């Protein structure tokens, strides 16, 4: 199991379109992937879960992956978040 703490940097936070991208990404991996904010933990493959996290800009979240491709899963998601979901800001 791998856990990685990542900061949300894009201006709008995990809004609907960003959440959709994250879920798309997570769905590509076989591992079980969770996202945690504070004490709340949701399935990274559920857009509703991600939206309900209410992760605005500057929020620190943890991505937790467990499975055969856990390493790749975490680093891909980290890259997506760090690239601000390809948004302008």
């Amino acid at each position, binding site marked *: 199991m791998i856990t990685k703490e990542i900061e949300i940097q894009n*201006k709008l936070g*995990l809004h609907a379109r960003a959440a959709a991208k994250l879920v798309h990404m997570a769905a590509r991996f076989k591992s079980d992937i969770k996202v945690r904010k504070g004490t709340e933990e949701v399935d990274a493959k559920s*857009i509703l879960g991600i939206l309900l996290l209410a992760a605005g800009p500057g929020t620190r979240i943890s991505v937790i992956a467990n499975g055969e491709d856990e390493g790749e899963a975490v680093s891909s998601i980290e890259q997506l978040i760090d690239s601000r979901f390809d948004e302008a800001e």
Partner: protein
Amino acid sequence: MTVIEPKQRKASRDVRAEIRTYKGTAVSPGVAIGRALIVEQITSVFRVPIKEADIPHEIQRFEQALERTRADLTDLKQTVSRSIGEEYASIFDAHAMIASDPAFADKVVQKIELDRVNAEWALHEVQEELEARFETFDNEYLRDRGEDIKDVGMSLLNNLQGLSRHELSEIDHDVIILADDLTPSDAVHFNQKPIVGFATETGGRTSHTSIIAKSLFMPAVIGVPRLTQVIDNEEMVIIDGYEGTVVVNPSEALIEEYRSKVTRHEEYEKELLGNRDEPAVTRDGRKVSLQANIELIEEMADAKKYGAEGVGLYRSEFLYIATSPRLPDEDEHFEIYRKIAQDIEPNWAVIRTFDLGGKKLAKEVMGSKEDNPVLGLRALRLCMRHREMFRVQLRALLRASAHGRIKIMFPLVSSIQELRQAKAFVKEIKAELDAEGIAYNPELEIGIMIEVPSAAMTADILATESDFFAIGTNDLIQYSLAIDRNNELVSYLYEPLHPGILRLVKFVIDSGRQAGIPVSMCGEMAADPLYATILLGLGLDIFSMNPSSIPMIKEVTRSLRYRDCRRIATQALQKKTAQEIEEFVIESLAMKLPSGFATRLR
């Protein structure tokens, strides 16, 4: 969106066979002719207990609705992506994912099973629970995502109740959609036969629905009071997206006239656009600059299409209206200013700082109420009082000045002290940026609106410390003549050609010329051939107006001699009443303008 069955509503149609006209706001040009179709948002869902044996059937209904909704959203995404653009389409991708998310669907299924209720009610409950959770979010933008859940829920409900939009395509005549209000996703559905236009009771000119109508080239009128009550389904309706009118029960002759209106308008526009790349210069060589008044970034396309030589006025308060009730942040300001400057290059864009009246902002942001808001804490005064809000805008403007050709303009200045205080504040912010190592244009020009009589009368004083003037006629006339033009009892006294107004305007232009600073006008006067002639004669440098008026004023400019305009202006200033002035100018112009224009003068 639900289509109400035509039969339910046509009872009173026969007794209303006369032609009726309703007035609203035009948001998307063109003329559409078709039969009325009233659509309504679903407001009531009923709880219906079901038998245990019916549970599988109810779940099956819900799953079918899910499937149809997913298919609809995929279609929608493709349509929008093709017709409007990827960025609008990606939201429907997110909606499709919500509809596919087991975390959503399982909850509804569970509720059907446990509570033994109909699928509609189960869906309604789950949706309410989710929306309530979104409402607790601190981050306003994320909180509004509850709207996405609502939108998906609505589509599901439509499909559950079998009131799908697919039925619309079975109608074999052109249809005009009438609604209380429409969401952007409703509006994009309209990009299909048989819908040719729409009108709503509510909605703003700057709303997404209006913008989408414009990008779909679909004639639309909004803000028609009681629309869905005064028109019946199947009535013949004309939407005039030029004038903002809705005509019901037109005669055959009237329909023909409206049909030809489109052709006439297109021909007229084509003819005028012929001068797009020509300079605005009089026959004897006096060059003026015709620029655009802009409220929305989307209007920049029009500014270019009609050949604007700059943005003479960007009304930045529309930025606030778009983000309302939240104030825009520094990056949101910056992004818009940078974009405008980039779009208008190599010309300049003048950004007017927040010109919000007590009325607009007081309630939401300031929480105060004034007896006389027009003479109260508004525009520059309000900004200087709430400096933290003003700082955000000025920082963004300064930052943007390093990326494009922008100028700052302060509204509602009434004395040189006010200008000095505001400029001192800009200086303070420049020092801040210096300390932070953030770039800006050190030569950034700062000008003022001349719209308060005292500012017009002290234009010679103000010109010593202002980089440019822009005369705002609408307010200048109201303040000078003490007339509220929206008050029917006195609006007849609202006279742009009042000798008092012309004298003020002349003094402002003369003061600008003596100080060597450019003077523009960005009120409605600048876009009227009659007034424009006088303004040309008074020596105005810049005429800023709605982009679509530019070609006509350019044609007027190109057909006149500066020498003649000067004579007309001089003689006009000697007349005693607005009416005398108007008659004199029309008479003088009748011989000088191309034949087509004489008929456009009142």
